[in-house]
């Protein structure tokens, strides 16, 4: 980088940045502030706004549905954390040079490329109580059929499993790339020292895969908190709101119940939770930038 000489040229970065910054401010930065501001108002989305202070938040913390959605988001985060290790497992399994392996690897990645709406439809069939493969499999083991998507106790886990499918594929690709870039000298040295199998993985391979693990964990957490498409297509939050998550709860309140102010309060809470991870990611990213 260097200083620019002529006055006119000093304006160039501004011109280069202007279109992107303007759009980004109008569609992302400003709406965030507006939503937070709106969360202090009672508003049906069309008519007058009435300032209500913290009343939306007080109501929210008293709302049983809010706690159900929050709890489900927690389940999503906890069980979504299975995606990085399973993705790593599949990547290790596929990291060989046999004929056709490139095709296999890319086909393993399919679930990530297709729309979550399609994934949701596919898994709805899979779980169908009368003809779904899931219940046929249960039947083979002599178990009673379970209507996963209409059972309050199972529904969220059923949706999470559907969400894991593409998420595992994503983590797998991150790790396959990481395994490709391993330092062969270190592995050879460790092999000469008698390291192999689990020990090798833990002490030599995993430390080298740390950048991949970092990205995998961040995108998985963000994915868990963002979950909306699958809930919307598979259950619409049902039965009786038991599979709702904050993202869907917010959408439901604002669009179907005409409670935009209340919806904005839910969105603000979700945004604050997400900020923890965004801040962590930024901190790591900028730290490596300075190094």
């Amino acid at each position, binding site marked *: 980088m260097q200083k620019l000489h002529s006055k006119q040229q000093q304006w160039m970065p501004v011109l280069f940045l202007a279109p*992107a910054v303007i759009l980004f401010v109008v569609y*992302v930065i400003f709406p965030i502030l507006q939503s937070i501001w*709106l969360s202090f108002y009672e508003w049906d989305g069309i008519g007058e706004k009435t300032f209500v202070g913290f009343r939306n938040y007080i109501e929210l913390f008293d709302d049983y549905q809010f706690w159900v959605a929050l709890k489900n988001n927690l389940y999503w985060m906890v069980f979504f954390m299975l995606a990085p290790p399973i993705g790593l497992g599949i990547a290790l399994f596929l990291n060989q040079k046999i004929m056709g392996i490139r095709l296999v690897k890319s086909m393993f990645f399919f679930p990530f490329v297709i729309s979550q709406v399609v994934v949701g439809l596919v898994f709805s069939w899979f779980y169908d109580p009368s*003809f779904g493969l899931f219940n046929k499999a249960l039947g083979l083991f002599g178990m009673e059929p379970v209507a996963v998507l209409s059972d309050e106790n199972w529904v969220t886990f059923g949706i999470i499993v559907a969400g894991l499918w593409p998420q595992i594929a994503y983590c797998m690709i991150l790790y396959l790339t990481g395994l490709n870039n391993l330092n062969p000298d270190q592995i050879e040295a460790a092999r000469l020292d008698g390291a192999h199998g689990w020990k090798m993985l833990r002490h030599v391979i995993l430390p080298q895969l740390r950048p991949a693990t970092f990205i995998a964990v961040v995108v998985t957490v963000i994915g868990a908190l963002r979950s909306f498409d699958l809930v919307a297509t598979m259950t619409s939050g049902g039965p009786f709101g038991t599979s709702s998550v904050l993202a869907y709860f917010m959408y439901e309140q604002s669009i179907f119940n005409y409670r935009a102010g209340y919806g904005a309060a839910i969105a603000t809470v979700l945004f604050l939770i997400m900020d923890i991870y965004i801040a962590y990611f930024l901190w790591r990213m900028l730290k490596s930038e300075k190094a």
Partner: protein
Amino acid sequence: MFPTPIEKRSLPFNLSYRVAVWIALILWLLPLVAVMLTSARSTADINAGNYWGIPSEWMLFENYALVFTETPMVRYLLNSILITLPAVLGAVALSTLAGYALAKFKFRGNIALFAAFIAGNFVPFQILMIPVRDLTIGMGLYDTASGLILFHIAFQTGFCTLFMRNFIVGLPDELIEAARVEGVSEWQIFWHIVLPLVRPALAALSVLIFTFIWNDYFWALVLVQSDEVRPITAGISALKGQWMASWQLIAAGSVIAALPPVILFFAMQRHFIAGLTLGATKG
């Protein structure tokens, strides 16, 4: 290489591995296989509950013909294309300019601006929903392709700028500086020196955000409501309501919706993965 290359193992181990890989693949993709088979089933099969076996008669052509003639699927498909292509083009263009400025110019607030783009890319959609919907309605763009396109360009610019900036940072400064000493204007430098060098990154980025935008469902629900504008994700979901019992048609629709990103991924696999894992090699 880790794990140990399979060639170094015993022959039986080697052979069983080669078989296991394909079995694992079939199990992994079983749900998709089922959808593809279902899209070729007859109504009789559906009514008889034959969802997972081999279709008793193959209705592949008939089912897809029916989807294309009896449902607005062609319209949805066209809408998705008309929304996705301009949005990809717009986001990539804006972010290449912005990424270049962030990577190669020193100015106050550079890092802060970069951080804002990264952070914005991770925010939950719901925090943007109500204001963006109002803004779109206010501009008279509700239920138009332009409304969706504008939003997608703006939102994807966050991720794209992060991506382009990190790529351009790696380009040698000497080239740019030499041109400056020669008195080449900044715009000429961008157009004739930087742009040709970032071509691989442009390809990677375009493929990646094509699938992001193509698969978007949330904004299609929030900013659009009529069949004339609805992209295929929201279209399938609407069809599901109307064609409840005709699973073979929903399945065919799902296959059609999934095909473009899958084909693009296959055609440009290397680029796609390069795009996805950028930052995974550092950070």
